């Protein structure tokens, strides 16, 4: 299961999802709660840092990456699951 997360509004993310035909949910973390909890709110004046996190089926962190490649990383991870 992949979840995209940004600090954008639902309308902005809907456009983004439609443009790229994403088949996974884009969470609209407009108050930055999730980003803060996961270390992706590095600069409150900017958008989310490109953090990538893998959570195992027991709800524990398996991997945490501070900067992932925007395009290659999600595809590579999904392929490895």
């Amino acid at each position: 299961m992949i979840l995209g997360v940004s600090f954008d509004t639902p309308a902005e993310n809907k456009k983004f999802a439609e443009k790229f035909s994403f088949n996974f949910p884009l969470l609209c973390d407009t108050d930055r709660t999730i980003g803060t909890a996961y270390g992706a709110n590095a600069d409150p004046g900017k958008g989310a840092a490109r953090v990538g996190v893998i959570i195992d089926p027991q709800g524990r962190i398996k991997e945490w990456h501070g900067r992932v490649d925007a395009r290659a990383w999600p595809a590579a991870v999904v392929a490895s699951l």
Partner: protein
Amino acid sequence: MLNPGDKAPDFAGRDHEGNAVKLADFKGKTVVLWFYPKADTPG
């Protein structure tokens, strides 16, 4: 930052279609969180 083995912080929110999404929905599955700075920016 988080370290391997840490309990993943619970979260709940809404997706771009307005659906409620929370971490507990995916218990028993591997979940990938992909943060990105702004919808539709390169890099």
